[in-house]
């Protein structure tokens, strides 16, 4: 199982996270839902669904946090019977990204949180200095960008 990234600077930090934290799935996406990197997915349709859901959950949690606590919730954890989901905002020089990971009994929430902290640090230092902040996706470009990113991840670019 390999890690694929639309932009090469993301690949190293994400691969290291997967290796250290021993998670089964990992996904980094733009808040608009466009995929930036993935590990563990075998079908582009699954990535597309996960991105849409993660973006929606992140948006809902942000609004809920603002209503309840005066500031957005930036992390979420759900423990299933066998697998757990961790979703959090990753701030990078390119702007805020959303990070989603799924893990089982080989890892733990404590390990995932710890390595997520390291992932953010590694993304900060790996991000190209001259890169412009990510622009918000325009509706007319969104689907084209989404498909382009999926194609890049699954080797059909």
């Amino acid at each position, binding site marked *: 199982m390999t890690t694929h990234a639309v932009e090469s600077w993301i690949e190293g930090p994400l691969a290291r996270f997967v290796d250290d934290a021993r998670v089964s799935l990992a996904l980094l996406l733009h808040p608009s839902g466009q995929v930036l990197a993935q590990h563990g997915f075998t079908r582009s349709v699954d990535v597309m669904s996960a991105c849409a859901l993660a973006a929606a959950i992140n948006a809902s949690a942000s609004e809920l946090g603002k209503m309840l606590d005066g500031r957005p919730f930036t992390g979420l954890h759900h423990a299933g019977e066998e697998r757990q989901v961790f979703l959090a905002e990753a701030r990078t020089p390119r702007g805020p990204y959303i990070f989603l990971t799924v893990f089982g009994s080989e890892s733990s929430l404590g390990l995932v949180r*710890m390595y997520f902290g390291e992932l953010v640090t590694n993304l900060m230092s790996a991000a190209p200095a001259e890169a412009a902040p990510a622009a918000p996706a325009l509706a007319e470009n969104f689907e084209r960008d989404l498909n382009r990113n999926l194609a890049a991840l699954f080797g059909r670019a």
Partner: protein
Amino acid sequence: MSGSPFAEMLGALTRQRGVVASLVVDEHEGMIVDAILQFGQDGDRIAALAASLYRKARQSAHAAGLGGVHFLQMDAEQGRLCMAGRNALVLVVATSPNANVGLVRVEMLRAVEGLA
């Protein structure tokens, strides 16, 4: 010092010579339940890694037919981790290399009875 049910136990352990952190950790989540840490100690990091090590040792010992793990001690060049578990909680003590591990072990085995 925290006001949790584990505060007294952790306080007694932290007073031992060479102890730099004592924590009660959820074994499965690797998260701190309660802790007393010296300045500069990263409790979350210790909790996550120690719980993972203890859980792996427990699973491995079970797989090897050796039964449950009562006490685990890992020595490293510049420090030591001691763990004792009960009821899905792990008592973790981090020490410097010069700590009296015999005393720490006795105190931990006594204290672990109070984990519930």
